[in-house]
């Protein structure tokens, strides 16, 4: 069967089971958009390529399936560089297809030409510049294999216009050999010696902690983790990327570690004598000053990527496999812990003395942002997916939302990409139309990608967006208040400009506003009752609110600053 390269590309995506593409057409990718009209694949027309990329990420994070985005060459391709970099930092499976100028024009500075494989070399797991139509099926199959196996990540396929326009004889790879990836071996047998040494360390530990990272979610290890934690009685901390991997309602969950982690989580890590690290990579936001991080702890490090071993923190035992396989192996090896009662009584004391807290709400406003998040969470139906941008609102959401199941938290961790929230929430809702999807956003983040609400309205994707509008770039403002003598430099945004309600309405959404506690409850109920169009709520919040606890950048986690109301007396 003879097909054009463009037809072969779309047919290859169908072979991979792709249901949705997020994209925006243009010159070099034009040939591929024609056969899309005849395909069952749904295309979501984003208003900016960055939006398309973050939508694909949100889709991937909410479903566990790879997100697919398609854009044109040149600026289309460079506009999606931020989502690619974001997905690379958070190991999110993504396949990005970019148009490219014809092979005969590459290297001539042709119109809308850019070297996108060169640009993305350092922020993709791999990328392909396809040289012939006959090679397209292999590139697509290889891209999906690479994106979804081993440590997941973004893969880019650059398709020159003459490749998509030329003819090929249809075929599709059916075996791994046909993918022609001789250097790619993502899985290894579990090292039984390492498992035995891990079991030995765990059996002697008096103050062990399970440090659970994003790899736990990616390997679908949540159930195995609950069983493992309950069998060993070890306390669990869940990094920002792992929120939802272990239920917040579980008595053994201490919450999030790191710069804005809970006091019990941060301090348990500091006092620990054994860290069992599951798919986490000792990010600087978790460790604080590395030399002062968990100084007495031995480390068992489980990761599918061996380059994470000893990169930041020395590991006494390394287990190179996915988290679920490792947990199964530890269980099968008969792992046990000594009684941890003394350890737990210390932890319980920290818990009761330093719970997450915030100042009493003021009835007439301005609203406490933490209160808004709790109010939304209380009124959210079970299984609600929550997305966020990056900044104070993100940290508060991670702290005050109660995550009970995997893949209900969609956020930008490693890259810290402002503007991630709205498009990622749209992608999550497309992937999980059965779930309610809230985006908790900041006013700064919202202004970066809000135009995608036009996409949401047009494509009937009814997400709900809560803007915690404190009229500032809040996290930067917090640092300037605390570390720059309250010298506020370029952080004021205005609460009224833009008018978020009118803006929402102009984009075909319902726009609501709440300035006091009474209105807050009413508008949340109103938003929850709307299921046909997107809703945007402008919550007027107190700009002086800061995220606590906090460990200053580069400080030791021993120097954690708790909420002002908890200060004084012995720690």
């Amino acid at each position, binding site marked *: 069967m003879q097909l054009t390269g463009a037809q072969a590309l779309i047919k290859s995506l169908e072979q991979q089971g792709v249901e949705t593409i997020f994209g925006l057409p243009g010159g070099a990718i034009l040939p591929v958009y024609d056969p899309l009209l005849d395909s069952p694949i749904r295309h979501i027309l984003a208003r900016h390529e960055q939006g398309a990329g973050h939508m694909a990420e949100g889709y991937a994070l909410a479903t566990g399936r790879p997100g697919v985005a398609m854009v044109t060459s040149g600026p289309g391709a460079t506009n999606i560089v931020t989502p690619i970099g974001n997905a690379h930092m958070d190991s999110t499976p993504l396949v990005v297809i970019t148009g490219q100028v014809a092979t005969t024009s590459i290297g001539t500075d042709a119109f809308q030409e850019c070297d996108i*494989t*060169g640009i993305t*070399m*350092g922020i993709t*797991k*791999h990328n392909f*510049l396809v040289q012939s139509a006959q090679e397209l099926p292999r590139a697509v199959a290889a891209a999906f294999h*690479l994106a979804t196996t081993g440590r997941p990540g973004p893969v880019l396929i650059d398709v020159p216009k003459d490749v998509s326009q030329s003819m090929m004889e249809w075929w599709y790879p059916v075996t791994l050999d046909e993918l022609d*990836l*001789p*250097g*790619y071996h993502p899985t290894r047998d579990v090292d039984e010696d390492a498992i035995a040494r891990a079991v030995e360390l765990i059996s002697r530990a008096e103050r062990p902690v399970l440090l659970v990272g994003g790899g736990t979610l990616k390997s679908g290890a949540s159930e195995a983790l609950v069983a493992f934690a309950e069998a060993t009685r070890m306390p669990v901390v869940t990094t920002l990327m792992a929120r939802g991997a272990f239920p917040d309602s579980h008595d053994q969950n201490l919450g999030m570690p790191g710069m804005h982690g809970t006091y019990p989580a941060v301090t348990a890590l500091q006092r620990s004598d054994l860290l069992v690290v599951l798919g986490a990579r000792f990010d600087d936001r978790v460790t604080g000053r590395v030399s002062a991080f968990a100084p007495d702890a031995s480390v068992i490090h489980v990761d599918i*990527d*061996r*380059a994470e*071993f*000893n*990169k930041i923190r020395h590991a006494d035992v390394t287990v190179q496999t996915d988290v679920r396989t490792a947990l199964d192996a530890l269980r099968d090896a008969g792992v046990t812990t000594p009684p941890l009662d003394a350890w737990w009584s210390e932890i319980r004391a920290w818990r009761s003395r330093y719970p997450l807290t915030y100042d009493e709400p003021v009835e007439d406003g301005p609203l406490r942002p933490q209160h808004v998040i709790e109010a939304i969470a209380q009124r959210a139906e079970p299984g609600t997916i929550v997305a966020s941008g990056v900044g104070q609102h993100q940290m508060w959401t991670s702290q005050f939302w109660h995550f009970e199941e995997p893949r209900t938290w969609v956020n930008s961790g490693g890259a810290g990409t402002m503007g991630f929230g709205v498009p990622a929430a749209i992608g999550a809702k497309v992937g999980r139309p059965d779930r309610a999807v809230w985006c908790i956003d900041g006013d700064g983040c919202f202004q970066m990608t809000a135009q995608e609400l036009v996409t949401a309205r047009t494509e009937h994707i009814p997400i709900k967006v809560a803007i915690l509008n404190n009229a500032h770039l809040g996290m930067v403002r917090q640092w300037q208040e605390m570390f720059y003598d309250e010298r506020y430099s370029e952080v004021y945004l205005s609460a009224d400009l833009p008018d978020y309600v009118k803006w929402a309405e102009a984009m075909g959404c319902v726009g609501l506003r709440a300035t006091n506690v009474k209105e807050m409850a009413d508008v949340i109920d109103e938003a929850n009752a709307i299921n046909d169009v997107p809703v945007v709520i402008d919550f007027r919040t107190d700009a002086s609110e800061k995220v606590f606890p906090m460990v200053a950048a580069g400080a030791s986690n021993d120097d954690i600053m708790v909420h002002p109301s908890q200060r004084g007396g012995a720690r």
Partner: protein
Amino acid sequence: MTPPEPFAAEIVHTPVRHHILSVLVENKAGVLARIAGLFARRGFNIYSLAVAPAESDARFSRVTIVVDAESAPIDQIVGQLDKLVNVVAIRDLAPRDALERELLLASVPVIDHETRARLLDTIANVGAAIVDVDASAVTVTLTGTPGACDDLERTLESFAGVELHRTGRVALPRLGRTATATA
């Protein structure tokens, strides 16, 4: 990678702690850029790099990289390199287990008889050979250990106006020793 000063008292081509990575890669466009980009963005230092088609199979090339094991732990360098999809296999050779060779080419201006005699004397002592001669210059070559090339380079710098190139080294395990097969 900081090049040595042209007339520095000591020429340092070989770091105190180096490793030789013999890397089998797919012979595909951009593969060298992927390797160079990885070293650049991770802050790993390369001392030399040599590339040639692999012995048996045209699909592959062999890249011999001398890396500074002070700039990052060798396991970290190998682990990151192994993640490049086009990298098929990595052999890590510790210097004591490796047979290393490189090639030096130098054109030396020869303006008088005395200089010519001194040059001939120099190259005879180290086993270098003359490969080209004209009225005003002599081109010499040496294939040898990196240390031998270092020595000759140092000696040749006493001649004014020398133009000198080195290939960077290639290496194999010494017979009876095994490289660490790392990937």
